[in-house]
């Protein structure tokens, strides 16, 4: 093995189950060149290490594509990696702090419940030294997280929650060390470690609550490295990378591939899935002359496509630019915990300082005693309860929402959600399920023949047709599929056809704009119409929001009459149809100008910018990656009810958070005078501290009793 090792990360689309992991990994297992092939299911990546040159990655990617998955080379997003590393670091710090806390507590109990007479000087010193031996490295290692953040804040002459924590940690440790060398009875390593441990728990929960946010933001960029076959004027073929495509070039788009840039069809007929751009999930017919946006997927037959805009100017890029703008414009929301810290920090510091000065000069105590009492004020004011007040509620809320099929992606989404005054829904895929449903009634005989033929096709409309039909099917022979056109078969010796209108009945006048497929039984041509059905509980959900005095609007890129139809069904009065991505973005931006807080619920790429501009955003799990990624909250299932459930939880959890802060404040109001008076022994401090944390946790658990 003299060859060097290479490695790559490949983004894999279409991972759904255990079988997929197995399928991909086993394709590489038998290859002697492959050192490691491991699929990460959570972030849809394949990690490859192999013997040989880096260029071989192309063949490996092809191999994954041949298995039926989408695969693109992927360069990991630094920000995401950084966040992951941070999470690991906290977990590690937490483990060390927990280990040290447990063991020091074990020793401290012996120190608390006995005194020098029963224990003897030697044993006590041994136990104290042992505590120090465990505590010091642990505080040094795990405390870094607080020290670094505090240092950063201070060096910018600011202050944050980590400053009093760091001061308390360092002072407690210093005093304990001093006490140890001077044969004092009490040392406080246990308090310091407990403080640190609880705060780290809060910090970790907090991080988890917002950790999932940025998973796949760069996924769409992966497509830029793909190559497409271009056709020169003399008929020669050349491979082009997406970034090299220029206006005027003609390229072949095979079935199953994405249109890489904006352009126009010059040859061929097919169906496309434009869900990424418009949110419209039903297939759309395309033919010569149809304009298409980048990101559309070609479904049935190869077409030749003329490039009109370079990749950087295509609609997907425009949306990305808007996205960036929206993120920048977004007023930095200040979380309630941070606001509390802003009041809390200076207050606690001044109280501790006052205590120190009071004892030193007024009570004429020595400096050690004064300092120790001041530190006990810092400890007993219990940033633990404050530090836990928000994360515990959030983690419980996240768990409860998860059961409802709602995934919370950003930590403060619930806080922002409970303040909304306006809610804006996209139409297709949000208010509706985005699945084709057969409309109207049809002649039973024709319906039977059409459904029997449709059985042989994988086209979404054919599937919907079969689904709507529930009688016996007839036998069809000589099935031929014409890509981009339809399907043909023989029934009792007669040729029957099912497919696009232009193929079946080009001469028949028909101005019905609904999605349709035509059937020809050899005599008559019949259109079958499809529509999109309303999500379950859509009108109930909208009624609920109205009853909460929240204004509901419908914002869609679709035609007016279709938008109005859905609006009437779902009881929305404020309808805005035929909106482009920019318009949607402006519409949402307008709310913040009027000082209104908006919730946007959308699923298409065309909604992404609007989602980012809204104060808080939700997307169904059927939404495209980038949109899911932009949204603060993602919900699953066919019902719109999760939107209501999430809002309810948000309201309740905010109530809990406020109660928790109240509890923490009440506790402090009682405890601080005792601490300032010098009545607090380490045991009392420890018990009080734990008790206040437990009360906060117990109160948070009441969230589980909320009825949805």
């Amino acid at each position, binding site marked *: 093995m003299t060859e060097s090792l290479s490695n790559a990360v490949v983004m894999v689309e279409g991972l759904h189950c*255990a079988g997929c992991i197995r399928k991909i990994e086993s394709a590489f297992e038998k290859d002697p060149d492959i050192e490691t092939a491991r699929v990460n299911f*959570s972030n849809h990546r394949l990690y490859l290490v192999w013997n040989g040159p880096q260029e071989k990655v192309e063949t490996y990617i092809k191999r994954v594509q041949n298995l039926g998955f989408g695969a693109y080379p992927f360069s990991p997003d630094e920000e995401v990696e950084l966040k992951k590393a941070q999470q690991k670091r906290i*977990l*590690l710090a937490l*483990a*060390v702090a927990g*280990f040290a806390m*447990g063991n020091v507590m074990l020793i401290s109990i012996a120190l608390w419940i006995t005194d020098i007479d029963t224990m003897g000087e030697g044993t006590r010193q041994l136990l104290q030294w042992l505590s120090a031996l465990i505590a010091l490295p642990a505080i040094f290692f795990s405390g870094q997280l607080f020290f670094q953040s505090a240092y950063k804040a201070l060096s910018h002459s600011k202050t944050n929650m980590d400053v009093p924590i760091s001061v308390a940690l360092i002072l407690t440790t210093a005093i304990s060390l001093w006490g140890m060398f001077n044969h004092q009875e009490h040392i406080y390593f246990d308090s310091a470690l407990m403080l640190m441990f609880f705060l780290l728990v809060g910090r970790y929960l907090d991080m988890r609550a917002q950790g999932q946010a940025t998973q796949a933001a760069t996924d769409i960029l992966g497509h830029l490295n793909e190559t497409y076959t271009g056709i020169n004027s003399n008929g020669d073929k050349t491979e082009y990378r997406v970034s090299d495509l220029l206006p005027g070039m003609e390229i072949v788009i095979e079935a199953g591939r994405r249109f890489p840039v904006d352009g126009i069809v010059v040859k061929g007929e097919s169906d496309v899935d434009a869900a990424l751009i418009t949110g419209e999930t039903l297939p759309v017919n395309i033919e010569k002359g149809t304009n298409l946006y980048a990101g559309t997927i070609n479904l049935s037959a190869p077409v030749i496509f003329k490039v009109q805009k370079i990749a950087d100017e295509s609609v997907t890029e425009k949306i990305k630019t808007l996205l960036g703008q929206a993120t920048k414009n977004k007023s930095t929301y200040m979380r309630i915990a941070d606001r509390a810290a802003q009041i809390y920090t200076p207050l606690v510091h001044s109280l501790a300082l006052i205590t120190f000065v009071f004892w030193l000069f007024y009570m004429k105590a020595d400096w050690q005693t004064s300092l120790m009492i001041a530190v006990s004020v810092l400890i007993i004011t219990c940033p633990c309860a404050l530090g836990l007040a928000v994360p515990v509620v959030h983690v419980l809320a996240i768990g409860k929402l998860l059961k409802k099929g709602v995934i919370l992606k950003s930590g403060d989404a619930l806080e922002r959600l409970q303040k909304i005054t306006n809610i804006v829904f996209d139409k297709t895929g949000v208010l509706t399920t985005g699945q084709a449903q057969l409309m109207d009634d049809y002649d039973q005989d024709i319906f039977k023949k059409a459904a029997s033929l449709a059985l042989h096709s994988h086209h979404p409309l054919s599937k919907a047709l079969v689904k709507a039909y529930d009688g016996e099917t007839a036998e069809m022979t000589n099935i031929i599929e014409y890509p981009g056109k339809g399907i043909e078969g023989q029934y009792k010796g007669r040729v029957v056809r099912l497919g696009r209108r232009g193929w079946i009945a080009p001469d028949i006048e028909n101005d019905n704009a609904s999605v349709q497929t035509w059937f020809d039984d050899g005599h008559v041509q019949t259109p079958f119409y499809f529509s999109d059905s309303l999500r379950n509980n859509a009108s109930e959900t909208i009624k609920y929001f109205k009853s909460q005095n929240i204004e509901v609007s419908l914002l869609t890129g679709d035609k007016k009459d279709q938008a109005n139809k859905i609006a009437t069904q779902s009881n929305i009065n404020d309808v805005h149809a035929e909106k482009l991505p920019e318009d949607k973005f402006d519409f949402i931006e307008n709310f913040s100008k009027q000082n209104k807080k908006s919730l946007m619920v959308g699923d298409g790429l065309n909604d992404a910018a609007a989602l980012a501009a809204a104060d808080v955003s939700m997307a169904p799990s059927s939404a495209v990656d980038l949109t899911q990624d932009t949204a603060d909250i993602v919900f699953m299932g066919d019902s719109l009810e999760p939107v209501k459930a999430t809002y309810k939880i948000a309201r309740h959890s905010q109530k809990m958070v406020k109660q928790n802060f109240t509890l923490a404040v009440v506790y402090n109001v009682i405890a601080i005078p005792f601490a300032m008076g010098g009545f607090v022994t380490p045991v009392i401090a420890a018990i009080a501290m734990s008790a206040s944390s437990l009360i906060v946790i117990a109160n948070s658990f009441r969230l589980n009793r909320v009825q949805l």
Partner: protein
Amino acid sequence: MSVLIYLIPLALLLGAIGLGAFVWSLKSGQYDDLEGASHRILNDDDENNLQ
């Protein structure tokens, strides 16, 4: 009291083993793909893991 000479180091050792095991599992990436792990258990053959 002299039994403490053995018991305290023993207690610390046990704790340290637990801590070590956790650090090892964290470092070897066992928390990287929590979702995948729940699917992998459904795969019948183990060749994959024996590599």
